[in-house]
């Protein structure tokens, strides 16, 4: 019986994965970048944000959004009003934005009652 992924160290910086039979994580880089991934999420603190306060409700589907860091990361409409906070699991986007990535998105669905809820989709623009 042969063995895979345990014959030699394969995670040298700058190295490429070996061909065939490699254990997970071989090579220096995955070739993927989390900053370049599109994502979807439900926004938080919607009722405390500018848009809800000003309009008494949530923005309709297809409203264009971007992301700004104002302390936390917020989804912001074209007029600069905060619509909701991104879950803190997306805090890495602040690093991405500092590296030049921007994110454009839209409201996928939204409801104001019984609980204000805004679901959004975002796609990256690479620097």
């Amino acid at each position, binding site marked *: 019986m042969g063995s895979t992924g345990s014959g030699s160290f394969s995670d040298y*910086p700058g190295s490429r994965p070996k061909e065939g039979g490699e254990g997970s994580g071989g090579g220096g*880089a*995955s070739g993927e970048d*989390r900053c370049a991934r599109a994502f979807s999420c439900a926004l938080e603190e919607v009722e405390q944000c500018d848009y809800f306060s000003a309009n008494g409700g949530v923005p309709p589907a297809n409203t264009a959004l971007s992301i700004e*860091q*104002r*302390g936390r990361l917020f989804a912001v409409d074209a007029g600069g009003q905060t619509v909701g906070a991104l879950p*803190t699991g997306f*805090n890495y986007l602040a690093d991405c934005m*500092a590296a030049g990535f921007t994110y454009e998105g839209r409201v996928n669905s939204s409801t104001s009652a019984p609980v204000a809820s805004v679901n959004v989709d975002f796609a990256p623009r690479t620097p």
Partner: protein
Amino acid sequence: MSPSQDLLLVGEIYIDFTLPKASADSKLRLGGIVHAARGLWAIDANFSVAAVCPGYLVDQARTYLERLGCSEFIWLAEVKGAPNVMAIGDPTELADQAYQDILRDEKSVGYRREADVLKAFKTCLIFPGKYDLTVLRSLLAENVQASFDIAYDLPDLQSLSSFKGNISSIITSTSSPMFLEKASEDMSSLLDDLRELSPQAILLKENRGGSRVFDLRTDEVDEIPALLGETVNSVGVGDVYSAVFASMLSAGAFDAGWKAARAATCYAQTTYPDDFKRDAQRSLVLSVDQMRGLGGTVLPWHARPAFQIYFAAPDFSYVDRTHLEEALGALAYHNFRLRRPVQENGELNPQSSMHEMRAAYLGDLGLLEECDLVFALPLERDPGTLVEIGLALALKKPVITYDPLKENTNTMVMAGSTVYSAKLDSCLNGLFDVMSRLRATRS
């Protein structure tokens, strides 16, 4: 001998071998202080290594570390009788990671003559192991400033006494045997013992609940949030945290903690070193004020039992308990206080009377009302569990639903739950996050 500005990493080098599972390949990489070295490489810090390892590992370790920019590799001591191979059962630390240090009882360590060169280093980070710390102290410079990661392999604090007056920081974690023995209920005794050693700062790493930095010069404490994402491999994450913290300590303990936490988070989310370095460097571009503004998950170990979690599940003696025990083990490992209705109000049987069923129902309902949130495991679409989820939602209590077999892909269950996932990792993250928010609301 000219003085070196490098941070000297001192400790054992292992081979970490994560055992293969049905859902994941095996993983082989250099471990021990090599994890810490990867952290320093990622932030472009200058470092050297004083390694304790078996002879067969020296050339490969030296070559690997040189690729990470290690200025000087010193083979400090030789391990005999054991291969320094660590078999790892769970790389994501859902619960105890089940480390197996192969042949550890047969291991012995002997210092080598090369050790004389250590006097050139002004700062070091020491990971204790099966080597004598008193001998090490005699090999280091009189005025060396040492940080210690005492999470593992330190039998007692007395072992550090020869370093008193030369200690910059002491780092430990909530998974440390010493922490669990001395500080699981209350930190004060351990903190007092650590203060006796006169460090400038103490760092307590609290896994998914963040970390705390105690600055003993100002007597202030800072809570640093965890940034929870999918954990790819948590092995060595604490070592990266310690290395970056120690290397940045001169700029202030709190700032060092915030930056080190970020680097460690990046290490948990990939095993590709180049990805890690890219992500860590991007992350450290942010100012500490920006990091503070972003927030995250803060749930100190000692705050967790203050929240009561209702365990909604077919927690019966007669079912296949594999997934139940997996979840219970993970929740206990992270110091959560679970209320188990079947345990507290009794397990019924097919012959139970309606009176007994009503009594059990009312007991469970009362318990549910007392609890702050629900952790649900609706195995086999257990109707009792699904009713409990519904009741909790009606009571506006957060529900975390762990559905390992994806048996409940139902709109009300999935959309009603604050977190619904077939992965225990995601459910644990959700639990930490929800409780962190509850804590913030209470305070």
